[in-house]
């Protein structure tokens, strides 16, 4: 089966610019996650979707970050405006259902904000 797809793989932007990341989960997976991983740290959950709905976005900086999952499949994560501290790898993952164990991760997007 095809894995979780993400694009772009790398992005360099200047602070105050905007950026968007795209994720296509494994077919049939109802739950989709966006994580932020700063170098040397574990992933930090930004937002979790179950189909179209948001399960948890408590750690999403809503003044600058937004995410949507249209039609319960693909998802986009946007940052506007970006700050230097947003430099990180943004990981998308999916699982069959909420709380159903194993999560499958995409390759990530490495964002550098200068």
């Amino acid at each position, binding site marked *: 089966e095809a894995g979780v797809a993400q694009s772009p793989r790398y992005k360099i932007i200047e602070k105050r610019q905007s950026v968007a990341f795209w994720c296509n989960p494994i077919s049939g997976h109802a739950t989709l996650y966006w994580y932020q991983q700063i170098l040397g*740290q574990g992933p930090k959950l930004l937002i979790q979707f179950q189909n179209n709905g948001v399960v948890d976005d408590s750690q999403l900086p809503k003044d600058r970050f937004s995410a949507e999952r249209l039609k319960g499949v693909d998802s986009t994560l946007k940052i506007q405006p970006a700050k230097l501290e947003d430099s990180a790898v943004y990981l998308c993952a999916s699982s069959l259902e909420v709380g159903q164990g194993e999560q499958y991760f995409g390759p990530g997007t490495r964002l550098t904000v200068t």
Partner: protein
Amino acid sequence: SQQGEEDPQALSIQEGENATMNCSYKTSINNLQWYRQNSGRGLVHLILIRSNEREKHSGRLRVTLDTSKKSSSLLITASRAADTASYFCATEGGYQLIWGAGTKLIIKP
């Protein structure tokens, strides 16, 4: 917020030796999972152990869970160069995984 804490932060061993890393957590859980992350294959699920299990094996991996001490250990036997990676424990207590900062494992030839 990070719940799991891996120990040690870094570990360097000779190829063929066994590697043990530990994870401690703070609140009750449904399961605990171990993941591996390297530059080649990204973040990959290794093994899941449920709160009512004490030990689980998968190939060269052995995981133990002690819920009374809120701790888990991951043992990799007969290490190989390809095992060089960061290893993360993640706990599931509700509907999300909470991750530790990871153990960086280096296998020397």
